[in-house]
């Protein structure tokens, strides 16, 4: 049963050690009246017990290293170990973010060169690695668009157009930046409804936020027309880079007409997701938006790199220092290992893998959009509703077979949706095994739907009561609390 580290405390035990105390330091103590009054209620554990505690927790978690993880929109590709080796080099980990430029030329080179490479890859002309995650990259991009309009005396542009298939972060970001959002519906082919877009464009339009391929895994064949439409209305286009993987060295957002974009390095560029972060969400832009990029900038003068901490029109600081350096360091290595040649292979194979799975899964699910997909695709698990089995149940049953579930119920516009993204990393064998598992689950649905509806059966816990968690929130444990658990 789940015991927390707090439940395991044993009086007086500890793992810590500190440098030897020196006599000369002893006489110093802070003013008595400002000292902490209560004990710090942290557990007391030896290093062995701590190690076993976390090893035990790790075993209750699925990762890419241990399981096939076709979680749509998250690009769960291999996280190469060489990246981890690189990020742990003391030459990088022991550098302070405010060190003088001459003492961190290596770091500054990484930043400068990665921005140049990403610009080249995406058809953009400037960028910043400061945003700490995709959502922050979106926020920066939208604020840059706001600053651009402000600088031209067009502050009346208060609306952002956002397709109804968009990631939830898009409308949340636009709202956070002070814009109102205008949803654009999706047509029967899975593309943005061009007529509705045209009708929505006006002198109030600040811009459009778009993922292409969209969250249905479909590339918009009318992308150039969409861009023209928004530009003619005086708006700018923001590219949500969540789905960049299938386009690497195939086509460039800049050439599609986008003005500013973000990239999720933790998706396309293989940096580990770490159970929910840290990520990194660089923002790239066309020349006319460069003055608004967040601080700091790195410039190259001769062979020397310099950090610029001030600028006139910048939107300012977005992170404590220079963003998630150790994350974009990994992306840098990934990029130089692949080159354009290797990146193109990623794009092509991710699309082949997805289309292969999609073709094979036709036998078991409704496929709402028959045209070729990009790196991911949606299926509808609505044919089993008469047995009382929903997409959620299939997802849970997959866990029993050692496969992490695909994304479910997203995009919201597809009924009983499974969003599946195999990535280029996975072998044909793994994909075939997945298909066999689906086939087996479908058979189970016919023969014993209850088995599927009550899955998972083989993990450390069965289905969890999320309603209870929200209604009677228990959000922490205490050192001295008698937890009501069976030990």
């Amino acid at each position, binding site marked *: 049963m789940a015991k*927390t*580290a707090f439940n395991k405390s044993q009086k007086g035990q*500890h*793992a810590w050690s*500190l*440098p030897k105390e020196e006599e000369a330091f002893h006489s*110093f*103590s*802070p003013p008595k009246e*400002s000292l902490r009054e209560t004990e*710090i209620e942290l*557990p007391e*554990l030896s*290093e062995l017990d*701590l*190690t076993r505690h976390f090893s035990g927790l790790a075993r209750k*978690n*699925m*990762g890419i*290293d241990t399981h096939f*993880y076709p979680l749509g929109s998250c690009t769960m590709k291999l*996280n190469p170990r060489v990246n*981890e*080796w690189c990020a742990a*080099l003391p030459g990088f980990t*022991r550098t302070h*973010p405010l060190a003088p430029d001459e*003492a961190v030329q*290596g770091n500054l*080179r*990484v930043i400068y060169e990665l921005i140049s490479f990403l610009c080249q890859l995406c058809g953009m002309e400037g960028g910043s690695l400061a945003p700490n*995650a995709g*959502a922050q990259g979106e926020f920066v991009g939208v*604020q840059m668009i706001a600053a651009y309009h402000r600088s031209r005396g067009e502050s009346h542009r208060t609306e952002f157009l956002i397709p109804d298939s968009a990631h*939830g*972060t898009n*409308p949340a970001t636009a709202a956070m930046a002070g*814009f109102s*959002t205008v949803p654009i519906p999706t047509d029967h082919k899975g593309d943005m409804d061009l007529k509705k877009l045209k009708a929505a464009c006006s002198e109030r339009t600040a811009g459009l936020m778009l993922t292409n391929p969209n969250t249905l895994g479909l590339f918009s064949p009318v992308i150039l027309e969409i861009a023209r439409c928004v530009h003619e209305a005086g708006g700018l286009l923001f590219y949500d880079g969540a789905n960049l993987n299938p386009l690497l060295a*195939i086509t460039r957002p800049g050439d599609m007409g986008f003005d500013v974009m973000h990239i999720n390095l933790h998706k396309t560029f293989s940096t580990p997701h770490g159970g*929910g972060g840290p990520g990194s969400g660089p923002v790239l832009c066309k020349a006319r938006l460069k003055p608004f990029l967040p601080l700091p900038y790195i410039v190259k003068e001769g062979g020397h790199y310099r950090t610029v901490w001030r600028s006139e029109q910048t939107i*300012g600081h977005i*992170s*404590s220092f220079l963003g998630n350096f*150790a*994350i974009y360091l990994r992306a840098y290595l990934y990029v130089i290992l692949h*080159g354009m040649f*290797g990146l193109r*292979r990623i794009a092509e194979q991710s699309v*082949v893998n997805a289309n292969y799975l999609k*073709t094979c899964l036709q036998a078991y699910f409704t496929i709402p959009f028959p045209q070729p997909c990009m790196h991911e695709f949606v299926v509808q698990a609505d044919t089993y509703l008469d047995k009382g089995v929903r997409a959620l149940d299939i997802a849970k049953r997959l866990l029993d077979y050692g496969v992490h579930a695909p994304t479910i119920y997203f995009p919201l516009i597809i009924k009983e949706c499974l969003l599946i993204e195999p990535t280029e*990393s996975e*072998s044909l064998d793994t994909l075939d095994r997945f298909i066999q598992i689906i086939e087996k689950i479908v058979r189970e649905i016919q023969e014993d739907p209850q088995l599927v509806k009550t899955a*998972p059966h083989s993990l450390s816990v*069965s289905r*969890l*009561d999320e309603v209870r968690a*929200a209604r009677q929130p228990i*959000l*922490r444990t205490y050192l001295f609390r008698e937890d009501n658990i069976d030990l």
Partner: protein
Amino acid sequence: MDFVSNQEPQLKRMLEKIGVADPLELFEAIPKKILLPRPIQDDGLSEFEGMRRMEQIAAANTFPSFDNYLGAGSYEHHVPALVHAICSKSEFLTAYTPYQPEASQGMLQSIFEYQSAICALTGMEVSNASVYDGASACAEAALMSLRTQKKRNQILIGETLHPHYRGVVDHYLRSQAVEVLTIPISSDGRLDLEFVKKRISPQTASLLVQSPSFLGVMDEIPRLCVVAKEVGALLILCANPLVYGLYRSAGEAGADIAVGDCQPFGIPMQFGGPYAGYIACKESLVRQLPGRIVGETVDTQGRRGFVLTLQAREQHIRREKATSNICTNQALAALAALVALLWYGKEGVRKLALTNFQRAAYLKQRLKSVKGVSFLSEAPHFNEFVVRFEDPLNQVLARFREKGIEPGLPLERYFSTLNQHLLVAVTETKSKAQLDRYVEVARHG
């Protein structure tokens, strides 16, 4: 090189099944004029070549060879070996956000324990699963204070909040109809309490202050709390969390929201990130907390388990009405902080904090005997303080660097009047011999 598994034989079979001759046929939706040609030359590297390149780049950083006294939100602490061992475990490192709780109990329980440890340290009642960094924690807390008191439209921010954090807060507040007032520094380096008393009003949503401040000074938080309470404003306290091992906790001081950066616990400086920002608050504010929160529950058989909870606040449910657009937490960095906090444990955190304080105090005391050196403030400090040199600062810096010491952060970039001043941070990583050497160099050059 690449990490693509399937090669020619598999590709052939897959294309046959799909019913196309060339992968390019799958890209037909892309307008021809924006399609790039397939590169012919392999411009990548082997793993060996990549590793050599990265070693060369790392070697171009000379900083690690210096005795480092830079702090200002990023501190050189010992990182227990256990931290890296746990954080590089595949199941933590390569998992996504725990959307399937049954397959993610390890990470969910770790986050639950992280929330518990942050509460224990700060003396607050609830914590979220972490946000990006200290700066975004401040910004999110400021937004929280506006959401909880919708009619209030003013925030008072201490001038001694980390200037980068302030920049990010301003950035997040830009789209809000809110008046931001800066609380100036008084002569002792603390915030001007009289200014606060004069300017605080029933319109004030919150006071956002840092202690130990950017200038290393312990501020008078309990007194500020009293003033804030009088008008019903919230007090947001930003702090290096290590300070709570020694000084009174945010909860004890009366703060409503405690924020800061977990970096001092188990996270290397690594040129500024990734770190993990913490936000902890009173229970009454929990529904306004941004980002992920993990809660305890039971499974269908009554067994204890953990899930992401209170998700009705979040972007994937609420879209444009969400409390924040944030969707990641810094799970792996938060795990590092948790492992370090547990490694130090109840007694170790106290001793670590005391060690930091004493070594900083020792250096400060010894520097008092050096001619041409003075201090900004005699108010209590933690592990950082501001020192003023009479000699031109670039000469002082050159002198120290020649001896392999990075003596502190020049403050002129942030405060134009502090053009002779360095912000000096001392942690447990500095021995008496190193500190004595600092004093020698300061004295003789």
